[in-house]
């Protein structure tokens, strides 16, 4: 039977009623969330707040990937952990918190780092991926696998007093298809379409080295959950099909997902929130020249190749600064 036509239990109704009465959600939106599977990669400053709202909203299956353990320096921003859980795996620590908030979803711990070897197996069972990781190599890997497995990707990042967020690969058109014609973008971009090359290693600041304000990364994480919830509740990730079977009207009142918005947040310690704190930047769509999803990409990027070490993500992201002018 259609999982979207079942009744809600009393417990579900009690818990989700305040979001079900929001115009546009309804029982149908709630049932879509209850039958969705989301993978959160990274249980840190982005992953903790994102997971709280993903779990609160009632997403049915929530996988969490992280290979680290909780450290004292995490706790000013990683609000799903606790002092008593210092030294324990972040994945189990976060699931402890989420289960206490909402015991109804199925939580799947993946207490490991995502690698070229395990990425496809980790991502395949899910409907949507949140990239909450902390380094360029992993971000390119996740995007490539999401392109190949056709998963929408909500990507965010944050360092010091800045944050960024973009919804990628949504809807997830097959690799190499939907390339732009006559200036018209026919498919949504992937991470590589927007961010063709990583920064030189010396310019890629991590939160550990460069620091991070808790509310900045927290805001980006909550915003990620917000984008994931609307995609899943409204079916924005559904690919319109010509036979109408999975078909939904192409959404996008303000901005077509085929040319998404990059949201940037700038937090000034020396001024209150002002006119340029949030900016919305128009990105292009899928690019013909994209290594992962562009012309000829099927020949150079495959799941088998990634497993065998092609491309080499670490090398791609470790280009030194060409010259130092100091």
């Amino acid at each position, binding site marked *: 039977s259609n999982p979207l036509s079942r009744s809600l239990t009393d417990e579900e109704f009690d818990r989700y009623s305040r979001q079900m009465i929001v115009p546009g959600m309804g029982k149908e939106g709630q049932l879509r969330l209850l039958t969705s599977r989301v993978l959160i990669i*990274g249980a*840190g*400053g*982005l*992953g903790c707040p994102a997971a709280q709202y993903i779990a609160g909203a009632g997403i049915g299956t929530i996988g969490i990937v992280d290979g680290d353990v909780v450290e004292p320096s995490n706790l000013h921003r990683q609000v799903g952990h606790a002092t008593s859980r210092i030294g324990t795996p972040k994945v189990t620590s976060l699931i402890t918190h989420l289960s206490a908030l909402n015991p109804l979803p199925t939580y799947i711990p993946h207490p490991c780092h995502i690698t070229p070897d395990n990425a496809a197996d980790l991502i395949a069972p899910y409907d949507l991926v949140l*990239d*909450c*990781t*902390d*380094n*360029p190599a992993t*971000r390119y890997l996740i995007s490539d696998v999401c392109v190949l497995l056709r998963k929408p990707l909500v990507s*965010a*990042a*944050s*360092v*010091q007093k*800045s*944050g*960024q967020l973009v919804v990628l690969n949504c809807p997830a058109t097959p690799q190499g298809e939907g390339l732009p014609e006559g200036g018209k973008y026919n498919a949504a971009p992937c991470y590589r379409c*927007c*961010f*063709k*090359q*990583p*920064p*030189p290693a*010396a*310019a*890629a*600041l*991590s*939160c550990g080295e*460069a620091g*991070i304000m808790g509310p900045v*990364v927290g805001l980006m994480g909550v915003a990620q959950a917000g984008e994931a919830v609307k995609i899943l509740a409204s079916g924005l990730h559904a690919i319109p099909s010509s036979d109408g079977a999975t078909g939904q009207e192409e959404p996008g009142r303000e901005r077509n997902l085929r040319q998404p918005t*990059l949201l*940037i947040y*700038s937090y*000034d310690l020396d001024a209150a929130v002002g006119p*340029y704190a949030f*900016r*919305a*930047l*128009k*990105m*292009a769509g899928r*690019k013909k020249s994209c290594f992962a999803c562009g012309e000829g990409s099927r020949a150079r990027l495959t799941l088998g190749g990634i497993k065998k070490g092609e491309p080499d993500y670490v090398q791609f992201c470790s*280009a030194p*600064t*060409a*010259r*130092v*002018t*100091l």
Partner: protein
Amino acid sequence: MSLTIPITVDFSGGLEMLFSNKRRHSLSIPALFTEEKDGKGEGEGEGEEEDKGKPVTIAFLVDYLCKNFMKDPRSDLFVLDGHIRPGILVLINEADWELEGEETYEIQAGDNILFVSTLHGG
């Protein structure tokens, strides 16, 4: 007095630290470039421009910013081999520069050019 055009240049994602820690710069940049002879007053015909120089592009602006506003010795965090370094997005009036012709885009009066360092932390 050279002909200049007013623009705003913004830095984000940490790049502002290379430019006096200031996120927004309101500038008057030369309207034309190449050999720096005497400029012309306003109101002259367009036909003569080819002789006097070319309209300024993003490529020119990047060089101009480095020469005039970079207060930090780490210029390689902004420019590598004469081009914007990998990992920096350029937005012309809030749109990815790829939609506008990238380095060859001819800057117009009133334009807003935003340089954003892409972030990877979390």
